[in-house]
């Protein structure tokens, strides 16, 4: 056996998968079409954002790399929704597109057990329904115990610009021409998807006086729980906000039939993401909107590209020129790279188990855009989980499956394998039922323990977590014990809150919306880190809401703990509704909880399922 684990693809999923498996002690090979494109960011130059920023923290808590790597390469950072509740705050950073891949490659190269190979993969080797390795396009075979597919948008990729269709990957890279056809031969259902990217403009050809400047926060942030800030708070790169004009809309309307998606190509099958519409989609679908918001985002300190967020299109180049020049401040802009749409093949995700192993072939895993998601963060977290689970499999251990009340990562994977997808999947806060539990601030408390158990978090970091937990406990008991008595009403007045007739504990005082924990620090017996103070304040202030979420999560857990055996025969359950039977056979849920989340399976079907399980398996 040449390698224990082979990772096919070097994007955000591939890097996390390869690092996890190498760090967990397995001899790992990462195969990429082009070493220069390791951890490439072919679309927006940013990491994080609502929900996604929380995922980056979760990756970090489990021992993944994305957070640390983003910290090393960010050029602007903000806390989103800082004025709102704790559950929806998330970091978003502008990241330097040259530094991010460079730093990631450095990390990969310095990781033990990890080899990088340039080349394209055309097939997987399978024997007895178990993967045995890969076949390169030059027919060379490389054997392994497990394979993780992270092919991104490269399988049968076509770049679409106006009436042009070219077989190319992002930036005109070589696509993977054989792999998806071969996966289909192995029995996988392949789904065609589509996404797009906007034009890039020469930095100095833009008149910024017509745009509104948007700066980063003036307090330091890091994605990682471990890193100190690398950047200078006073020296962050700005973004700029502009709007489309009447002229832009006129040009789009006049040229609509030249867009690949509006008739210039008649063979577009890929389904594009709802949350990432092209500018022509926006203008057509929201016809009554006078203008659309666009952001000018710097791609790097080391080259000239400005990314026009919100302006992705599949118009031909000459129309793109006109469209760009119709934007305020971009009248004389020079286009460096034209926008394009890209069509690619993915594996329909209900063919995966919650561990991200395929149901069809043992020890074969897949992660990232190949599973029908979109976004660097969504890809990275799947890569991490696939890497962890492939390693655990080789170690003969149970897979790491995060539950919906434990992590956005759990929500994402459960959604994918249970509900499938219609269009490329993006995480949104509304997808999480228990988002109050899945906060940016408590990702370490939720997940670090798992990272430690699987060996991605070392003893030292784990001890820091234990200290933090201890600190939280101590602070809470101090706050419950310490009281403010009526004799101190002056103090209450001073901090702007109602006076008391009887004594009140600091804990209860903190429940008042106007009382901040900072006001009470001097009264505490011990010193606490800001992280602990923040954590405890959130726990107390939102206690009612948090407890409600915990109660609901507990109810879910009861159903989640009712397992459905692998070999259950849905065809034998005559009374199931036919739609439910078909869906249950497709998804093969592992628990009653998961079964209930399948659309088309209703509570009556679950009742029938319960009775059959009881009858045929006689287990509690």
């Amino acid at each position, binding site marked *: 056996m040449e390698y224990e684990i082979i990772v096919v693809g070097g994007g955000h999923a591939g890097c996390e998968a390869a690092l996890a498996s190498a760090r967990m002690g397995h001899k790992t090979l990462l195969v990429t079409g082009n070493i220069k494109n390791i951890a490439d960011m072919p679309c927006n130059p940013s990491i994080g954002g*609502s929900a996604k920023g929380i995922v980056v923290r979760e990756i970090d808590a489990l021992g993944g790399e994305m957070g640390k790597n983003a910290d090393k390469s960010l050029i602007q950072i903000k806390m989103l929704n800082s004025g*709102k509740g704790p559950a929806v705050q998330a970091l978003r950073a502008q990241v330097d597109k040259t530094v991010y891949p460079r730093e990631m490659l450095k990390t990969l190269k310095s990781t033990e057990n990890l080899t990088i190979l340039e080349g394209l993969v055309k097939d997987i080797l399978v024997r007895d329904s178990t993967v045995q390795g890969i076949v390169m396009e030059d027919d060379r075979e490389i054997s392994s115990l497990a394979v993780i597919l992270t092919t991104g948008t490269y399988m049968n990729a076509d770049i679409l610009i106006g009436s042009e269709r070219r077989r190319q990957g992002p930036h005109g890279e070589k696509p993977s021409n054989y792999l998806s056809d071969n996966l289909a031969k192995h029995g996988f259902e392949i789904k065609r998807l589509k996404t797009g990217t906007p034009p890039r403009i020469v930095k100095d050809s833009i008149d910024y006086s017509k745009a509104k400047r*948007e700066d980063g926060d003036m307090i330091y942030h890091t994605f990682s729980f471990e890193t100190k800030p690398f950047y200078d708070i006073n020296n962050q790169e700005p973004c700029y906000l502009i709007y489309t004009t009447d002229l832009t809309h006129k040009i789009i309307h006049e040229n609509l039939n030249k867009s690949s998606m509006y008739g210039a190509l008649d063979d577009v099958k890929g389904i594009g993401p709802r949350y990432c519409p092209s500018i022509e989609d926006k203008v057509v679908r929201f016809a009554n909107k006078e203008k659309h918001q666009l952001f000018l985002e710097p791609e790097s300190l080391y080259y000239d590209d400005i990314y026009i967020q919100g302006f992705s299109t599949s118009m031909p180049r000459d129309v793109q020129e006109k469209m760009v020049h119709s934007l305020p401040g971009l009248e004389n802009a020079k286009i460096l790279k034209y926008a394009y749409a890209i069509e690619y093949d993915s594996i329909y995700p209900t063919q995966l188990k919650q561990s991200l192993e395929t149901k069809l072939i043992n020890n074969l895993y897949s992660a990232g855009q190949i599973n029908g998601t979109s976004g660097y963060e969504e890809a990275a977290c799947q890569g991490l989980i696939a890497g962890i689970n492939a390693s655990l499999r080789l170690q003969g251990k149970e897979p790491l499956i995060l539950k919906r009340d434990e992590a956005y990562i759990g929500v994402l994977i459960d959604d994918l394998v249970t509900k499938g997808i219609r269009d490329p999947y993006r995480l949104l806060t509304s997808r999480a039922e228990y988002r109050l539990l899945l906060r940016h601030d408590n990702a370490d408390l939720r997940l670090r323990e798992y990272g430690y158990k699987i060996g991605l978090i070392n003893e030292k970091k784990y001890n820091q977590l234990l200290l933090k937990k201890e600190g939280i406990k101590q602070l809470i008991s101090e706050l419950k014990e310490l009281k403010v008595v009526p004799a101190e009403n002056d103090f209450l007045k001073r901090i702007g809150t109602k006076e008391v007739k009887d004594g009140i504990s600091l804990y209860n005082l903190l429940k008042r919306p106007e009382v901040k924990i900072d006001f009470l620090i001097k009264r505490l017996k011990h010193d606490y880190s800001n992280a602990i103070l923040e954590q405890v304040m959130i726990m107390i202030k939102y206690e009612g809401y948090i407890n409600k*979420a915990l109660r609901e999560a507990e109810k879910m857990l009861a159903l989640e703990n009712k397992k459905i055996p692998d070999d259950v025969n849905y065809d034998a359950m005559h009374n199931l*509704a036919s739609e439910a039977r078909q869906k249950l056979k497709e998804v093969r849920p592992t628990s009653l909880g998961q079964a209930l989340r399948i659309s088309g399976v209703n509570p009556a079907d679950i009742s029938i399922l319960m*009775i059959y399980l009881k009858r045929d398996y006689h287990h509690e």
Partner: protein
Amino acid sequence: MNDTIAAISTAQGVGAISIIRVSGKEAIKIVSSIFSNSKFFNAPTHTIHYGYITFNNEKIDEVLVSLMRAPKTFTMEDVVEINAHGGITTTNKILELLLSAGCRLAEPGEFTKRAFLNGRIDLTEAEGIIDLINAKTDISREIALKQVNGKTSQMIKDLRSDLAAILANIEVNLNYPEYEDIEEMTTEKIKENMDILESKITKIINSSKNSELLKNGIKTVIIGRPNVGKSSLLNNLVGEEKAIVTEIQGTTRDSVEASLVIDNIILTLIDTAGIRRTSDVVESIGVEKSLKLINEADLVLFVLNYNEQITEEDKQIITKLEGKNYISIINKCDLPKKIDDSNIKNKIYVSAFKNINMDQIPLKIKEMFDLEQIETNDLSYLSSARSMAILKKVSLAIKEVRQGLSDGYSLDMIELDLKDIWNLLGEIIGENYEEELIDELFSRFCVGK
């Protein structure tokens, strides 16, 4: 399996006693919360207890309650059976109280299903249950749709869609905070929406009550001073062609003694015994008794004499009628007018004796209870007990939203309660499509890179 279920386990409306069965972990606790007997909660297993089912200190029914603690019960869970006095309205009211207190309405066959899953009964018996559940699969959606009439269901759909717009707005604010051209949802808008929601829900609850009235009869009392003609009014109303009088064996609780059907409306007459006996006894019903009867009734027929002045007694009654559903029937309108009725509301001039204008009475009743709008074939009280319980939960959730807003929580926190309301409303009309909100978000707002 972890929740507590309840259902009426005797045939509806048949027999003098009906049994409501409750099973599950919380069965004893929930029943205790509506049962007057304080010894019940800690009582030994397999015992029977006497007392009242009460709601807001009002006695709903005099009952015997059997308590059976797990595991020696039919379902092998804690089981409580409430033996009530029959009568559809009372039994349903008790069920409704149980549902509001935390029970879930049992699905068909669910007690037996639990008995099987908990190992109490064997396979052959279980096969039957599968059929039962299966039958339910096909009609469950139909039931969900039928439990509210078309108009109410549309109203709930509209409420839900207003709420979805707010939820989508909040979500888009959270997920795309960088979009300056998208309006921020405001506290004021949510408050406004909650006001509308609350008033519409009150309306739905009232109209459901009216459906109930239509089905189970409007508790009606005829009052008035001596000699105003109550007996002749009743005699006219029960006249050969229009009316059927049904004797119901007296239950002492509410003195219901006769049902009267006029134009498909059931009037359940209270204390008609007096009226129907001799006229002497009728006329002897004093003001005090009248006032008490007003309290018990859904509808008061207040009879006055066209040919007489209003007395102090009348005035006392008029004050008491404020806020009640009542019709002032000014009888003997064929005689010369002596009454000063300028301060009397809801009046109809009739002559029961000469049969003048009597057809106005049922029309007025229909108008008063909004009965024209209710389609009789939509009614299914069982499911309406369930929706009533859900609507009560909605009312509670609205309170939580208001509390949250006044405590100054941010809108993303408030949204959690709003989502609960949205889900509850969906439960009533049987709609629960998870992607709905996300669809809403992207169809309403133009966002994305």
